Structure formats: structure tokens, C-alpha cells
């Protein structure tokens, strides 16, 4: 149990004294070091309440909460909060302070020296690819996306091991949100913080989480599992309904092309003879073949073009339209396949290195087998 970073045991919260329904009834969850746990559920499920109990913005009515083995209910709440990164949906940048001073908030509270703060701000500017010119501006002068990034950077200022994020990308439009999510995933890959992330958006949960806790009214944990498992094997009807339609497609979005076995396709080289090329296509029952010279993908040639000449070298290979890499998701591969005329996607890994092909059948097998 050494790797448990946050542990909630039989935690409950009642807001009204006279026996109204509990916001959180009896909740127990363990979160491992370095993992992103997403609390997701309909409004009123107590996900935000649960998160706020971890930094004691909400005091639990009963139960125990441990962060890194320490009972936080015995800690000074103000000290506790300084050691936990906190991001809220409305961001909450202090409007009367420059961006620089906003980021420096917690370092100043815990008494860092000016020089150390300056160095840390430089680091964060680099990590979050912030424009240095923004540092002396006020929050009102920034765009929504910029503010959001500053909000996350500020929460990371003293490099806390634990971060609480309440719909941190909720206040921006979908395009910016996706960019921010991608950037944060990238940053998290390096930092490996323990993150408690609250959202009502199941797609965001699937994208960001190492494990998802699906909560029902009153803080009831319906399922606590990695996204892939939740999509493949929803624990009950509530989860099934909450996850919604397109479970198969959502699962495809979780798997990278590099993670599955890729099929072999017809391959010729520039110096293949026409007969050899036609034989290769026939072997796979294809009308075309990929032209690969020393591992490098040149394009494709088809039956009519090869038939007219004596050698493949006399034909100019045409570029592939359905082309994916090992880093593409199966969902992207599927999209490439259905929009290509040949219904096949060609896989190249690292630039132009040819690996093989993906077919509709191969991808559909991936969904069915995993079930």
C-alpha cells in the first residue's frame, strides 16, 4: 500500500444538520501516486464535494482522509492547502495582480525567496509555453485559454505532489479545451502528479484518466476502473447509461495503432518487375501495392498502371490518403479507412518507415475481441 497517495475511508458529508440526504454518504477511494483519477457523474453526485474534502474546503462529517499517509483532518487546513495544487473551473486568477504575481501566490505564502520564485516562474513559462509578455499583464487582458493555462501553472508553482482540478478546462470553447487537455496530458506524463480531476464530461474523463470513478447521487461509487475497462465492461446499467452511446468508438480512441498487431499488405520495391508486382497484388487479392524502398514508403501503384509498363520504376507512385502512424488512435485509423477508397489504412511509423496495413476487419476484431 506504499504507493497510495490519497485515501478516503468511509467519508461522508451532510450539509444540513437535521437529517437531510447526505451529499456524500459513505465513500471509500484509494488513489495511487502519480495517477490521474477522474471523478465523474451527474450533477448532485457529490464529485466536487468529495474533491473539496481533500483540501478541507469542505469539512467531512465523518470518516478519515489521508494524504501521503498523514491524517489531514489533524492538519492545519491553511497549511494543508498550500501543499496541494488547486484549479477551479472559473480559474479564479486574482484580478488585481499581474500574471507573474498570480503564479507567485503560493510560493510567497510559503515564504520562498524572490530569486527562487523568479526561477520557478521561468520554468513554468517554459513548461506551459506561455508568452513571457503576458507576465506583466493583468488577468482581464488575457484570453480564456491563456487564463486557464496560467491557472494550472499557478497551481503547480510550489511543485505540489497532489493536484485537485475542478473542471479545469470547462470555461473554454471545445477547440481550445482539446488543446489544453493535450498539453496537460503531455505535461503530466513528465510530472507524474497525483491528480484528482472532477468533470461531468465522460469524454474528458476517458481522455484524461488513468482511473475513472463514476459517482451516483450521494457519492455512491458505481465503478472505479481504468477508462478502457469502464467502456469494455460497464459494471451496471447506471454506468452503461452514463457512458452513453458509441462505447466501441470511444474505446478505439483509447488504443494506439502501435499497441495492436498490424497486418501485412502487398509491398513492392521500385526495381520490382511488373510481373512480380502483379503477383504480389494477386497474393493479397488487392488492386494496388505499396512501394517501399529500404523501408521507406514511397506511395502506391495499381494494377492498370503496372500492366502498361515493364517495371515498377517506370511508374510514379501516388501518395496515400489513408495514412496513419503508430501514435494515431484506432479511432483515427478507422476514420482514415472509411474515407479512403481502398478501405485500408497504411501504417507508417516515424515519418515514412512502412510497417503494414490496417483494415476495417482488423479494427472491428479489436472491439469484438476485447469485449
Amino acid at each position, binding site marked *: 500500500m506504499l504507493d497510495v497517495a490519497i485515501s478516503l475511508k468511509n467519508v461522508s458529508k451532510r450539509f444540513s444538520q437535521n437529517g437531510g440526504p447526505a451529499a456524500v454518504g459513505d465513500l471509500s477511494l484509494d488513489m495511487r501516486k502519480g495517477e490521474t483519477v477522474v471523478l465523474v457523474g451527474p450533477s448532485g453526485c457529490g464529485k466536487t464535494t468529495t474533491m473539496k474534502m481533500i483540501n478541507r474546503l469542505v469539512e467531512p462529517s465523518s470518516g478519515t482522509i489521508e494524504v501521503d499517509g498523514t491524517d489531514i483532518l489533524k492538519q492545519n487546513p491553511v497549511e494543508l492547502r*498550500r501543499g496541494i495544487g*488547486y484549479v477551479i473551473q472559473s*480559474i479564479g*486568477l*486574482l484580478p488585481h495582480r499581474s500574471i507573474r504575481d498570480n503564479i507567485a501566490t503560493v510560493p510567497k*505564502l*510559503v515564504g520562498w525567496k524572490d530569486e527562487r520564485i523568479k526561477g520557478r516562474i521561468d520554468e513554468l513559462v517554459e513548461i506551459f509555453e506561455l508568452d513571457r509578455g503576458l507576465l506583466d499583464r*493583468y488577468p*482581464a487582458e488575457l484570453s480564456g485559454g491563456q487564463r486557464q493555462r496560467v491557472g494550472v501553472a499557478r497551481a503547480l508553482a510550489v511543485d505540489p505532489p497532489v493536484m*485537485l482540478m475542478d473542471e479545469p478546462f470547462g470555461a473554454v470553447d471545445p477547440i481550445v479545451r482539446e488543446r489544453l487537455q493535450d498539453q496537460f496530458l503531455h505535461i503530466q506524463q513528465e510530472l507524474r502528479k497525483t491528480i484528482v480531476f472532477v468533470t461531468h464530461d465522460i469524454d474528458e474523463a476517458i481522455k484524461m484518466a488513468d482511473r475513472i470513478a463514476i459517482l451516483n447521487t450521494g457519492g455512491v461509487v458505481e465503478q472505479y476502473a481504468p477508462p478502457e475497462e469502464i467502456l469494455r465492461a460497464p459494471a451496471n446499467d447506471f454506468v452503461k447509461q452514463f457512458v452513453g452511446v458509441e462505447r466501441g468508438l470511444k474505446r478505439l480512441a483509447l488504443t494506439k495503432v502501435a499497441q495492436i498487431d498490424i497486418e501485412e499488405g502487398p509491398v513492392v520495391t521500385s526495381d520490382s518487375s511488373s510481373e512480380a508486382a502483379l503477383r504480389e497484388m494477386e497474393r493479397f487479392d488487392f488492386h494496388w501495392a505499396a512501394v517501399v524502398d529500404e523501408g521507406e514508403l514511397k506511395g502506391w501503384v495499381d494494377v492498370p498502371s503496372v500492366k502498361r509498363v515493364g517495371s515498377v520504376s517506370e511508374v510514379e507512385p501516388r501518395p496515400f490518403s489513408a495514412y496513419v502512424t503508430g501514435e494515431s488512435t484506432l479511432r483515427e485509423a478507422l476514420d482514415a479507412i472509411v474515407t479512403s477508397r481502398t478501405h485500408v489504412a497504411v501504417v507508417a511509423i516515424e515519418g515514412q518507415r512502412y510497417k503494414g496495413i490496417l483494415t476495417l476487419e482488423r479494427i472491428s476484431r479489436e472491439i469484438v475481441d476485447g469485449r
Partner: protein
Amino acid sequence: MAGSGPIIDWSRVFGTLRPELISRFFEHMQLTFLAVLIGFLISFPLAILAYRHRKVLGPITAVTGLLYTIPSLALLVLLTQLFGLSMTTALIVLTSYTLLILIRGIVSGLNGVPNDAREAAQGMGYSDRQMLWRVELPLALPVIMAGLRIATVTTIGLVTVTAFIGKGGLGIFILRGFNQFDSTQVMIGGLLSLILAVVVDIALVLAERAATPWTSKRARTVI
């Protein structure tokens, strides 16, 4: 003298009246400054108390509201029974009229602090005290300053009333001018207190702008 000649006889203003005009002008400023200062020192803790404990807001506004509605002249006369024709009497009257305006300004300024700033600040580990001084009061400053401006300008006008007990700064000229049918004294007394009010108001606006640079974001984006 009465009813003849120009409304303001400038040769008298720059001649015989000048020394007293200057000293009364400073007396007017002094009374205003002291009344607003004392008013603020009383209002500030009361307003913080009312902001923190909603229950006391009602009684505080009721009492200060009552003070505000008493006619200034009546209060003045009443207080001379206790403190005579003194500076104390004048200051008590002037101060009591600033309380309602100042307390309301501070409380509504604090109420107007955006909730997300407060929540984020709490979540980052500000103590209640740090939150008040470093987040809530700075953000409430524009509204607090607006209250301060109204209180100050109102006081500048009210000071003239205290002329009835021999204080009153520039009000002395107005009162004496009426009694002597001397339009020059009435007009110059009124004119100077008007100028004082406008100048002080502008000064307070400039001070507020300097203290709240984040509210004038446009100036920065242009640069």
C-alpha cells in the same frame, strides 16, 4: 453696501477679506479631513464586523441611518448642550454623517469581490486575515473609494453648517454675508467650498486610479 455693486467685489476678496479667506479655507479642509478620517476609523471595523457577521449589519445600518436622517442643524444645537461651541461638537456632527455612507461603501465593496477569486485564494491557502487584506480589500477598493468620495464631498458641504457654532470654515462667510446682506462674502464662501469639493473629488479619483491599476486594462494593452 447692500444690494449695490457687483455680486462679487474682487478687490475686497484679494484685499481685506484675503487673510481670513485663507485661514478659513484651511480650517474647512482640516474639519473635512478630520471628520472623514475619524468616520473611516469608526466605519472600517464596523463594516468588517458587518461583513463577517450578517446579523450585525441590520443594527449597524439602522443606527447610522438614524444619525443620517437627523437634521444637521438640530443635532448641532443638541450637542452644544453637551460640548459647547467647540471643535468636538462640530466634529461629532460631521463624523456622524459620514458613517452610513462609508460603512455601506465598504460592505458593498467587500460583497462585490468575485467569488471565484475568494474560492481560489482560500484553496491556495490564504488565512482569513490574509484573504481580507490581500484579496478582499484590494478588490473592494474601487467601491470603498466611491463611498469615500461621496462622504468627503458631503462633508465639505456640511462643514458650512457648523458656522452656526462659530466653526464652519468657509461657512462663516456665507452666514455673515447673509446677516450683513453682503453678496461678496456669501458668494466667495460658496464658490471656494465648491472649488474645494471639486478639487478634492478629482484628487480622490486620481488616487483611486493609481491604487487600482488593474481596472484600467486598456491603457496597458495600448502600450
